[in-house]
């Protein structure tokens, strides 16, 4: 054992921690006017918006509900609603 426990972590293991629990608001992708500009994918600080072909979604395990995607969607095709738990 050259590096004892407590000194190195495995890559991408942050996914074990679900930040979705922080969320008080949630993005709803209306998918009415979407033109695949992918701005929502690009602007997500957590990188949890996925999709293609005018169908996008946020991985709610991690989405913190910041609403940047909602604000930046040029077609106002994403809505922020109060989280229902």
């Amino acid at each position, binding site marked *: 054992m050259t590096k004892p426990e*407590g000194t190195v*972590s*495995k*890559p*991408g*293991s*942050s*996914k*074990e*921690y*679900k*930040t*979705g*629990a*922080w*969320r008080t608001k949630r993005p709803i992708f209306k998918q009415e006017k979407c033109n695949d500009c992918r701005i929502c994918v*690009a*602007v*997500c*600080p*957590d*990188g*949890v918006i*996925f*999709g*293609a072909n005018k*169908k996008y*979604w*946020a*991985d*709610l*395990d*991690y989405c*913190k*509900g*910041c*609403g*940047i995607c*909602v*604000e*930046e969607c040029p077609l106002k095709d994403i809505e*922020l609603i109060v*989280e*229902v*738990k």
Partner: protein
Amino acid sequence: MAKNEVTIEKKEKEEIVESLLTPGHKACTGCGLALAARTVMNTAGKDIIVTAATGCLEVFSTSYPHSAWKMPWIHSLFENSAAVAAGIEVALKALGREKEAKIIAQGGDGATADIGIGCLSGMFERGHNILYVCYDNEAYMNTGVQRSGLTPFEAWTSTSPSGKVSWGNPTEKKNMPAIAAAHGIPYVATASVAYLKDLEKKVKKALEIVGPKYLQIHAPCPLGWAHEPYDTIKVAKLAVQTGLIPIYEMENGVITSVRKITKKAPVEEYLKLQGRFKHLFKKPGFEKELERIQAMADATIKKFNLM
């Protein structure tokens, strides 16, 4: 947490490209820095070795036993990200592994312009083949919004508060890109999370250039700047559109591109979105201060020919 059934169904159909900065990290809601770092990493691709200075980025991404990084990554101290990266670079050379990875060193504005400027200067001067990225959120956010050398003029921070006899931070932002360029390094650029395509282009370009590169990314902090988390991009855009944050590239000491202001915004529009500037709209005599900041923006516009 409510289950989103639509999401699960779609996940099976669509290809999910996961970031090299994986979710589950503990950055605040709407964090500009997380967005900037994620964009830099994804653009660079997985064949990189990355260092980070102490600060928000390191704290929110590496709380043991978890790590949000998918590439080989190391944090040592606050002020030595550039020197550790230099050690990695020479080690790869000595071990005949130069082709294995490109090296990216990261630091916040404090780590870069203040405490780590010595190590950074050494890295530039010695010509290491490293891209140094400064995430500029204009204060020491990790410790609770204290003033750094890149805190803008008259911004409130917890150590440059506004008060009866103070308008906040009395100094202007240290000109780090100029300091970097003065070392004679081949590539210096500024970018903003408001313009992610531009940022991606610069990361790509920088990584193709051999030698030390400096990239400073303006990244709003909803907590420290006291703006709404959903306004991160909007605030960043206004910083650029007012002329307060010039976006440009310098190659071998010469400015080779600037991002033109498409629709000039008065500085008030930028400042009023942020709690850190709210004293500029309240205290008697504020008009004069706003004029001073407007004059600074105008001077920058003129200097960089932004319009």
